[in-house]
């Protein structure tokens, strides 16, 4: 059984008289431990698909199952629990909580999960070190550059070792070296812990890291191919 199963997903937006196709009859099967890149131009439906799989957005029709559970039928609280315990998000914009420091932002999800203070502290320091933010733990988002903020957001997404990471342009604002380090870290998590990665990106360098590449256009999957990752 696939980790994620999407069947005939449709999501349309009305814009004046025009109907925008966010998702147009998209069907996908994603195995546990996959490392997948979603590519396509802006407005092709990459973010809509990530949001739908993450339970952040509702569908007009179609079914999504994660580990055999229909998330399109879940209520708000059940979806929140699913996201909390099984899904890590990296958003296009950094989306950090401005009144919390880098470490507190990373610890946020673990706090909601009820992880003990000592373990939270250990894990957050370690992950911030891994993403190259050692010594910046107590800085607030406003005191960090765009790239640094993105790394905090990545650290927050993976610190709890979720089963699934949904990343929307995670390397935007990162220099080449930081991008390489981040992708290497994603791959390491993927291989060591079987974490499934679904990464929406425009960046060809990021796409090289994936085992499977799904191309989208106008809300449809136009190409779905396996490839040899770097």
């Amino acid at each position: 059984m696939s980790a994620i199963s999407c069947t005939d997903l449709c999501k349309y937006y009305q814009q004046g008289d025009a109907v925008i196709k966010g998702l147009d009859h998209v069907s996908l099967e994603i195995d546990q431990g996959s490392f997948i890149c979603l590519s396509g131009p802006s407005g092709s439906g990459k973010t809509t698909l990530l949001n739908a799989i993450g339970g952040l957005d509702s569908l007009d029709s179609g079914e999504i199952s994660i580990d055999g559970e229909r998330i399109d039928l879940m209520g708000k609280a059940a979806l929140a629990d699913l996201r909390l315990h099984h899904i890590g998000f990296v958003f296009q914009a950094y989306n950090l909580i401005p009144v919390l420091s880098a470490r507190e932002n990373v610890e946020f999800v673990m706090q909601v999960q009820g992880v003990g203070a000592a373990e939270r502290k250990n894990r957050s320091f370690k992950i911030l070190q891994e993403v190259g933010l050692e010594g910046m733990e107590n800085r607030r988002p406003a005191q960090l550059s765009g790239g640094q903020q993105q790394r905090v957001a990545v650290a927050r997404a993976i610190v709890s070792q979720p089963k699934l990471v949904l990343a929307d342009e995670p390397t935007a604002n990162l220099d080449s070296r930081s991008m390489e380090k981040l992708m290497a870290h994603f791959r390491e998590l993927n291989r060591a812990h079987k974490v499934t990665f679904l990464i929406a990106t425009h960046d060809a360098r990021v796409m090289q890291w994936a085992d499977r590449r799904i191309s989208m256009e106008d809300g449809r999957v136009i190409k779905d191919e396996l490839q040899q990752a770097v």
Partner: protein
Amino acid sequence: MALPIRAMSKLSWRNLWRNYRRTLIMLLAIAVGVWAMIFMTALLRGMVDDMIKQGIGALPGHVQIHAVAYRDDPSVTHGMPAPGEVLLAVLNSEQVKAWTSRVKVPAMISSEYENRGISLLGVNPDGEMALGFDASDIIEGRFLNGSDDRGIVIGRKLMQRLETRLGKRVVVMSQDPDNAIADRGFRIVGVFKAELESREESIVYAGRDVVQSMLGIGTDISEIAVLGYDYHTPGAITSGIGNAVAADREVLSWLELDPYLATMMKVMDGFVLVWMVVIFLALSFGLVNTLMMAVFERVREIGLMRALGMRPSAIVYQILVESLLLLALGLLLGNLLAIGTIIPLKDGIDISAVSQGMEMMGASSVLYPVLQWPDLVLANTVVIVLGLLTSLIPAWRAAQYRPVEALGRT
């Protein structure tokens, strides 16, 4: 799932100070509102407390014992014997602060120029002092020296009405038990002042033994006045005495002797609550507005928290904790402000400019604010409970945002 309360409080506290000007203005509004609730309630309590104390002072006592028919016809024929052993045991018990027996009959007092209808009180001066007669109220001469003092003490206003003065003689007339005229000449040995002019004009003190002799009633008395330790709870004394007196005696607390005062006290409790709620309603608009603005400014963050796995109910808690912190801080400031204003005024506020109006209400011309802990608790409870209820509106609204829409807000 929600954040632990400590983390939630920390986040809420920092959120509060993101827009410190708005928070300070709201804190000031809450503090002033709470101050107004507590301070005005203390003034109202002080006024009613004064009215009740004046009323109890005029009765006097928290509890009185009479013959059953006396209140309908307070004449000398409705007297009663001096207290016996059983009653004395209760009157001298620990729950009674002081007591005295008196003869109180309607009478006529005449000077060489004028005459007036009065209440003649035959008293034991020590007992009257114990029940609250203030020696400093004697503005000329002296108070009575004992039950057998042959002098008379009249009010300042009555002295003016009778066009007489200290040392002059007056004649007091009443009826004896046989309905015959009983009269006697007294020399004015003292003049008293009272907070209420009506008391100065209507009450006359003479020695109890002398009045009993004048009326020919032996050692009979009209009433026994009993003072407890707290006027709010006269019930215990009333029931204790009730068990110790004969069936043809009436034991009544001040609540029954003066229903107007009793009603005033009950109405006051309701009025205080209404007053506090009205002030809070004015305050609530600011509170809702502040929290609404705080929510609107953070739609994206709320969406992020939802996306990271916080349930809608946890978002509600988060906003409520923020509101609670704002309210608690406002309450702290408001309480300190109120207590800091009331304590320096404990010696009273001179309102003699409106003394006539106050007298009509049975209150004196000095207003003593009374800070009662239950009022303080009530004000704080009203603000916290209604504040949190009001905060549910923005909190509920925040919880309704769909994560994907909220995250898309700029």
